[in-house]
């Protein structure tokens, strides 16, 4: 029987960060709780924060469930997490600059050449190019789980366009609106300056040719994208234009945005479109979403693209296993945050182990995301395991496996009252001239009893995440 670390209750006692929440829930009448939950849902519905689920059909305007019970970290816990996250973001960016440059880490034999250069996310088109300030991944989303009082593991890195930060901001907004007293009784670090830091980060990587206050835009694939709400939300907060490919065009050495007052030069593009689609002249010729000629302007220093094309080579699940090596190699430091031990099915020994222990392991696709195409051994039927075995055998290199982690739980409002549910954490680290992150992140919660899959596409919900001031 696995035991799970409960972040609020230990041996019948309430852990200190949650001390003031005990009374809050004890004193809250059931009807008030239901009323508040309905209020939260109505507010989310009104602002239109919904999440379309890929590949499942159903209601594209489904609300992502919001749980009112906050998840809390002490200042000390956060200080360690913050150091670990920043360390990782630095190493990932150093790796990207290196593998598009001299490739020292490959030459030194610390990571296999094929894993880097034959990676589908490695963009030959940007080899030899160093983006402004040497930053490839400007928003690094690092998924972290907790298994004990001081035990944290990084599940995966997201170096391209991690989503979900709007939920972090909206959850806080919602809690402050519904429970202002809680924010007087607890000293909670603010997160509402995220958009200011994001704007400052993007401005700090404007191209050298830009000699004025840079014009920033957010490039979205359009309103049918599942994260469209977030794109427009961030554009509003930062006071920048939200554009689609057709709103931008290349003329001479620069990119321009069509406006009612005529063309306006654009200096920094925060893109939420995949590499393959951003420029039909460089990548997929059939892309209708991109801007023809954008990559030539980018590579000749006329515009910055965040994250930089090619950043994806740092965050696939096979490269992930080498991040601790990156930290040692580039920074000369020991990793502050642990990696989850990972078996790579590409190797015969690892494959053998994985196939013999499928019932105990979590198996994931190397390029998968969103909780799709994965097997959670202990939660699967024999039939599901056998079906997955066939998939792995057909293409071993496409899979990695990890032990099933005992994800921590936090109290969560459920139909029967309050019960522990498993959670993870995605902080958003911003990398420009400086490396910054707001205290906290997005806590995702697996609302189904016993479930360890927190992805919103798999029925997970979100919580407000508190970091207490010293």
């Amino acid at each position, binding site marked *: 029987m696995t035991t799970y670390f409960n972040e609020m209750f230990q041996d019948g006692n309430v852990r200190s960060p949650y001390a003031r929440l005990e009374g809050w829930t004890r004193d809250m009448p059931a009807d008030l709780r239901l009323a508040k939950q309905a209020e939260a849902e109505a507010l989310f519905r009104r602002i239109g924060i919904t999440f379309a689920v890929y590949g499942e059909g159903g209601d594209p305007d489904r609300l992502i469930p919001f749980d009112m019970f906050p998840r809390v970290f002490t200042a000390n816990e956060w200080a360690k997490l913050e150091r670990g996250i920043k360390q990782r973001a630095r190493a990932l960016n150093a790796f990207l600059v290196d593998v*598009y*440059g*001299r*490739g020292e880490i*490959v030459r030194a034999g610390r990571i296999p*050449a*094929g894993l*880097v*250069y*034959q990676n*589908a996310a*490695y963009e*030959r*088109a*940007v*080899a*030899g*190019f160093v983006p402004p300030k040497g930053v490839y991944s400007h928003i690094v989303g690092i998924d972290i789980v907790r298994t004990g009082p001081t035990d944290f593991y990084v599940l995966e890195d997201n170096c391209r366009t991690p989503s979900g930060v709007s939920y972090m901001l909206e959850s806080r907004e919602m809690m402050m609106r519904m429970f202002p007293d809680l924010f007087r009784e607890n000293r909670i670090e603010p997160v509402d300056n995220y958009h200011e830091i994001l704007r400052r980060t993007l401005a700090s990587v404007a191209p050298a040719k830009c000699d004025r206050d840079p014009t920033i835009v957010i490039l979205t694939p359009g309103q049918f994208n599942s994260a469209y709400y977030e794109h427009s939300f961030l554009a509003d907060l930062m006071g920048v234009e939200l554009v689609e490919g057709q709103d931008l*065009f*290349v*003329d*001479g*050495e620069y990119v321009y945005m069509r406006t009612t007052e005529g063309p306006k030069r654009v200096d920094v593009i925060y893109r939420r479109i995949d590499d393959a689609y951003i420029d*039909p*002249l*460089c990548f997929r*010729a059939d892309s209708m979403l991109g801007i*023809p*000629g954008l*990559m*030539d*302007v980018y*590579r*000749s*220093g*006329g515009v910055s693209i965040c994250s930089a094309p090619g950043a994806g080579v740092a965050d696939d699940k096979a490269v992930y296993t080498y991040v601790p090596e990156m930290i040692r190699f580039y920074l000369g430091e020991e990793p502050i945050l642990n990696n989850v031990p990972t078996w790579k099915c590409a190797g015969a020994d690892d494959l053998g182990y994985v196939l013999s222990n499928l019932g105990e392991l979590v198996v994931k696709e190397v390029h998968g995301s969103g909780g799709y195409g994965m097997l959670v051994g202990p939660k699967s039927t024999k039939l599901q395991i056998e079906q997955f075995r066939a998939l792995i055998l057909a293409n071993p290199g496409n899979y990695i496996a990890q032990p099933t982690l005992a994800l921590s739980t936090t109290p969560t409002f459920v139909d029967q009252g309050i019960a522990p549910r498993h959670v993870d954490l995605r902080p958003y680290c911003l990398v420009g001239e400086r490396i910054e992150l707001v205290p906290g992140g997005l806590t995702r919660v697996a609302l189904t009893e016993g479930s360890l899959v927190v992805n919103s596409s798999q029925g997970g919900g979100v919580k407000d995440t508190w970091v207490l001031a010293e």
Partner: protein
Amino acid sequence: MLLSVDHVTRYEYDRPVRGVVQSHRLTPTKFAGQRTISWNVSVSGGTMGGGFRDGAGDWVQAWSVAGPVSHIEVRVHGEVETTDLAGVLKGSRESVSPEAYLRETPFTNFDPALRALGAAALSEDILSSAHAMSASVSAAIAYRPGSTHAHTTAAEALAQGEGVCQDHAHALLALARSQGIPARYVSGYLQSSNDGMAHEAAHAWAELNVPGFGWIGFDPANQCCPDERYIRLGSGLDAQDAAPIRGVSRGQGIEKLLVTVAVQTQQQ
């Protein structure tokens, strides 16, 4: 050898388009086998955009043309002094790892027939393997203009047993890469002559990476390695990636393409 190039690409649109953006790889590569005497590229009504040397050492130059416009002419004129280096790309400056040229693309996927040809030509010595692969592509695909089109894949060309230089190059890339030898597509020019060989003045061939030598050119269409009759422009994973001109027009006009190329020996 002193070669002169006159290359005109004319795009005609049946209805005026609102604008055109192009990306060119139309500048001779800097390497020991060629020295540029003069070189000029112009685009009618065009504005020169950003230019840069990419990681493979190619000069990439952007152009844009503001519409409405019903035709565009890209003119290339220049002179290059060439030296026969037996295909070896000596003295080029590049930073891309050869391992980046091992992947399949839609044009070069490892069809079982291509893979089998590659395996049959593979021996201990990579240089001998490269020659054998090039020879087997020459033997398997007859040169026949008009037998294929711009989107024909290596597998299709092999299956029908005929093609043009683009198909030969794609097939050789698939053979080499399927056996773990890095290979890339090269576009350039070839001196025109009337000796009955497969001369296409706007030409393409392949380069394979051979330990100890670096990149070596192989031209299966002409059963040789590039010599002083060749001018090298740029490279990529396949014909689309290495295209001398990639362009997109905004508007509904249907495009018609007219190309003339002359590559001739100048008296020294």
